[in-house]
Structures are given as C-alpha cells and as structure tokens.
C-alpha cells in the first residue's frame, strides 16, 4: 500500500489539470487531497474495482441478505398487484437503505456512494421496482439536499428522509422529457415575495403516491427560459397537489409512476433548494450522478437473470446432456457474463471517480448506456435459455425482461447518453 500511494499522487496531479477544463462540478485540489486521507482511500486506489472496503462489503451483504430472505417471496405479488407492500418500504427504512449517504448526525449511515450503488445492485438482483424507489430517494433527492440545501433545510428534511419519509423527483412533464428545460410548470412569486405558487403538471413521477416530499423543478422566471428553473422542496400534503392514477406499465409495475398536478400550490421561499434560477444546474448535476445508480440497477438485473438461468441450465437435460454443457450455450452465457463483468467494472469505476472528485460525467453516461444494453441482452437471452418455462410467469425471468426495458429510457435516454459522450469526446480532442 505504501508503494502505490505515491504512484497514485502522480496520476492525480496529471488528471486534475484536465479536471478543471472539463464540464463538470469543479473540485479544488485541496478538496481532493483531503479526500486522499479519508478512510476509504486504501481500498479505492490500490485494489481491484471489485475489492471493496469492510464497510462496503458489510453494506452489500446486509442488502443481499434482506433482499434474498425478506423481499424475494413478495416480488411476484407486488408485480401482479402493481403495488409496493408497506412492509417492504418499512424494511428499506429500518435496514438503513433509505439514508445511506446521509450523515450520521441526521440519522443516516454516513456511507459512501459506492456503498449506495452496491445496495441498489443487490436489491435490483431481486426486484428492480423496489430498487428504483431507493435509488431515486438516495441518489437524487437526498443528495440534492445534502449538496445544495441550507442547514435549516438539512435539519428539517434529512432526518425524515433517513427515517420514514419517501421522496420523489418531479422534473419531467408531458412535453419535456429529454428536453427537460422546456418545462412549463411555473413558480409565480407573490407580490410581496413571501410565497410562490406552483402551477403545472409533472408526468412520469416515480414513488409519487408514497412520497412525503417532492423535489419539484419549476420555472420562477419563464422570461429567462431555463435560467429561471428553480428547485423546490414541497411537502406532499400541501394543498393543491393531486397525484394522478399510476400508469399501467410494461415493467417496474410495482413502482408507481404517476402524473402530479400542482394547482396554486403555495410554497414558502425557505423551501427553495439552493438559489433561484439555478435549478437547471442542480438537476443536470444530480442526474449525472444518479445515472450511475441506474447502472447499478441494470447490473443487478443482469446478474439476477444469470441467477435464474445458470442453475436451470445446469439442471435441465436434453439429449442426455445438461444444456449448460452444450458448447453453443456455453459460448452464449460466457459472452454475457463477460459483458456483465465489464459493465460492473465501469460502474464501480464511475463510483470511485466521483468519490475521488475526478471528472466522471462521460463515464457515468457510458455506464448507464452500456449497462442498460447489457441488462436487456441478459434478460432476453435468459428467456431463450430457459425455453418454454422462461416465457411463463412460473419464473421471474419474464419480469426481468419487462423491467429492464426502461433502463434505456429513464434518467436520460440512451440517445441522450450517446450525445453527452460524443460532446465530451469532442472537447477532449479540441
């Protein structure tokens, strides 16, 4: 370990010059060096990407155990009924899966981003619908408040978010998905500036029925186009909020995705997250990170598919042979496992880049793009390998097949990821 530290210092010095030039949240070198002495450092730079610290490994094991023992028996029922069971959400809170990065002083566990992604991966391996609730909550809302919240806001919200309050991220609208800045929801200041009135309709909002708080993006100054977008923390029992009926979806059925209508919803200016007109920056920045969490979800899906496929193939015999022993099958699942491994490494590398304060936006886009593709291949191939029974609801493979598709859509479509990557590549060569 002593030998690798100086080596890494050289790498960091070289990269940090580029760090400033790249489009990202800038981290000072001072911040970087203070991170270098933090506890998790040893595991990060000197070991393989699949070697985790004791904290991270224990966190992963805790999630795996809960998901396999307590969550698995409930998955099919929740998918059939298109509803998350209250005991599952309680379980997420009780086990600490909802306040992972929140600091201990606010009732969270003070874990790092990698730990949060490991939990999302392990839960997704059993049920991606449950994982997405935890993912949005941890990587989008909780972190936005941690990064840009005032100390009053943190005191008010973080303990609740760690303990018992689900959150929702209300950005998209019917006419603004990828073109998020074209949003029409407005936040009109009162004459004396003592409150804002939110008016508009959000669409595709996950966790809406369960949420106790919404992180809403609304334009407080439409004349300035996207530079008027402001983020608001809105209590879900505010007057004027209507949660529409959940969409009937192809997959992630247990996760409710609803329209959320704001009709003259009064919001105190103390509930503005960060600065007025800076909301567009916050949503871009938080989604840049959040999509690494989505990648972790997709990897969980891919591994969950193999968890079903491998034992089946080793057990099922045709023509006197286990189908796992047919060379054609071996080539296919070996190829898939290789791609899953690549996606996994990319994901945890992106986590480490973010934790170290190094540029990670291009990598985050790449990993979300690629993992969603790998998950789709895994799910599709798994059904083929399972044969007829893969096509039935006797196994959860068909559920993974339906669940994985949204991976290439939400938190930035694949086309948007490709564009982001391309733009950043051009910057590198300019």
């Amino acid at each position, binding site marked *: 370990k002593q030998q690798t530290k100086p080596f890494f210092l050289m790498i960091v010095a070289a990269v940090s010059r580029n760090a400033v030039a790249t489009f990202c949240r800038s981290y000072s070198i001072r911040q970087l060096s203070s991170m270098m002495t933090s506890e998790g450092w040893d595991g990060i730079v000197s070991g393989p990407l699949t070697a985790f610290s004791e904290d991270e490994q224990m966190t992963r094991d*805790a999630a795996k155990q809960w998901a396999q023992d307590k969550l698995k028996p409930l998955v099919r029922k929740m998918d059939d009924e298109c509803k998350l069971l209250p005991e599952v959400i309680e379980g997420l809170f009780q086990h600490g899966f909802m306040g992972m990065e929140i600091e201990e002083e606010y009732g969270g566990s003070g874990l790092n981003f990698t730990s949060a992604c490991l939990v999302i991966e392990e839960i997704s391996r059993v049920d991606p619908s449950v994982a997405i609730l935890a993912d949005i909550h941890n990587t989008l809302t909780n972190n936005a408040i941690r990064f840009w919240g005032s100390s009053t806001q943190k005191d008010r919200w973080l303990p609740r978010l760690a303990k018992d309050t689900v959150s929702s991220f209300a950005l998209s609208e019917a006419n603004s998905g990828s073109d998020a800045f074209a949003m029409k929801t407005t936040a009109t200041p009162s004459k004396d500036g003592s409150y804002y009135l939110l008016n508009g309709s959000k669409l595709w909002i996950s966790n809406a029925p369960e949420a106790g708080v919404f992180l809403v993006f609304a334009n407080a100054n439409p004349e300035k186009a996207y530079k008027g977008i402001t983020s608001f923390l809105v209590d879900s029992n505010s007057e004027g909020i209507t949660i529409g009926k959940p969409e009937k979806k192809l997959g992630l059925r247990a996760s409710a995705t609803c329209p959320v209508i704001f009709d003259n919803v009064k919001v105190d200016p103390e509930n503005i997250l960060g600065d007025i007109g800076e909301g567009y920056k916050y949503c871009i920045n938080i989604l840049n990170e959040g999509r690494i969490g989505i990648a972790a979800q997709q990897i969980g899906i891919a591994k969950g598919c193999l968890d079903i496929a491998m034992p089946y193939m080793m057990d099922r015999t045709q023509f006197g042979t286990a189908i796992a022993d047919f060379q054609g099958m071996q080539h296919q699942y070996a190829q898939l496992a290789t791609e899953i491994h690549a996606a996994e490494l990319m994901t945890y590398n992106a986590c480490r880049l973010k934790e170290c304060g190094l540029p990670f936006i291009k990598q985050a886009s790449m990993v979300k793009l690629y993992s969603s593709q790998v998950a789709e291949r895994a799910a599709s191939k798994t059904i083929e390998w399972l044969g007829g029974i893969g096509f039935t609801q006797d196994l959860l493979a068909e559920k993974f097949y339906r669940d994985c598709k949204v991976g290439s859509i939400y938190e930035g479509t694949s086309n948007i990821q490709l564009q982001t990557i391309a733009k950043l590549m051009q910057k590198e060569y300019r």
Partner: protein
Amino acid sequence: MKILVGVKRVVDYAVKVRVQNNTVDLKNIKMSLNPFCEIAIEEAVRLKEQKVADEVVAMTIGPKQATETLRTALAMGADRAIHITTDLRTDYMELQPFAVSQIFQKIVEEENSDLVLLGKQGIDSDCGQTGPMLAGLLGWPQVTFAANIETDGKSMTVERETDSGTETIKISQLPAVVTCDLRLNEPRYATLPNIMKAKKKKVDTRAAEDMGIDLAPRNQVLEVYEPPPRKEGIMVENMDELIDKLKNEAGVIA
C-alpha cells in the same frame, strides 16, 4: 447481569468446501459469523432489551479478519468486544476446544461474567465441546442445546432439545454456561446505521499466545476427506424387491 458471548468466524454455510492436502481449503473462501453464535448474540441482546442483562460482551478467537465477525455482533447490539488474535486454524485443525475453553475461562474470570452464551457448535468443526468443557473448567452449571431461556438474572429455566423431546432444566443459581440451538430465536438483521455505529464500539485485542495457555492440539487429525459422492438411486419394481434390497444390499433392516 454481564453476559459473555462467544462468536466464531467460520466458513459460510452456503459455501461448498473442497479438501486439498488432507485439509479443507480455506483460501479466498467466504467466511461468516457461525449461525449458532448469531443466535447466542441475539439472545443476549434480547436479555439486555428486557433489562435482565446490563452488558453484552462479544468475544472471538481468530485472525485479524475476525474483527468483521465482532463487528456484526456489535451491530446486532453487543456493547463491546474482545478479540483474541491467533493465526492458528480454528476449525479443529490447529486450535481445539480444550484450548478454546481455557481461553474463555481466563476471560470469564477477568470479566466476572454472570452468564456465558455460546453457539451449540461451530459449523466447521461440529464439535459442540467448548460449552461443556468451559463449564467443567469453571465448575459452573451447564445446559446445552437451549431452545428457550427464561431468567431474572439470578436463576434460569432452560428448555433443551433432545432427540426424544424437550427437557426443562432449572438452574437455581447463576452463573452458568448455556449453549444455543437453532430454535432458540431468529436473529435480527444488522441494520446499516448499526453496522456503522459498531465501528465506534470498544474492541480489546490480545494475542492468544500471550495468555499463558498451552494452545497445542490434544487430538491429531489423521485424515480429512470429502464424503463419497452420492450414488444414483435405483428404481424397484415392487415391495418385495424393496424389502429384499433393504435387507440384503443396504443392510439397514434385519
């Protein structure tokens, strides 16, 4: 009441072990908290929550990685921990129950424990000897295979599971050694906040070799081998054939 709980780091129950060079190959194998020890910790923590016990101390004997085992015990609710370090193998190959129970004896005497809870056996060695040996060394009452414990901190009633049914034993005066069986309780999951808080709890470390105890094995392991692979079953045509095979081939009925 002060409770000392032994927790052992063993091969994870789900791992399929392999035998190499006349010993179980432990390289890169997943290790976990022994399930019966987990049950023992759970019982101790419950007694603390019922306000019958006021301190739960977890103890392990093992290499430096055994701190993870202690951390799980602390995350479940133990107050502090003792780590007796040794690089000797604790799966019977090097460190054996007699030495282990002597180490426990020394700590019990130093700690002035009122109750020792142990798992009934380690799932690696399957000995089940540490509890009874420790009780013998201390001159304390012992109950093994506890399936239910009731105590007010002074006396204790234990139901123990035997092959022929449940036996109820009253210990009229603590201290005592009790080993825990499967049906005693269902251990809690360590939550993430507790796992992180466990890092701050006190762990005292000492080397087993420095305790003035002869750690040498008393029994020599002659051979370690995998059980023969399960042979394929056969189909029989009728009851007569079944009886004939059971009698004359398997030799299981007279």
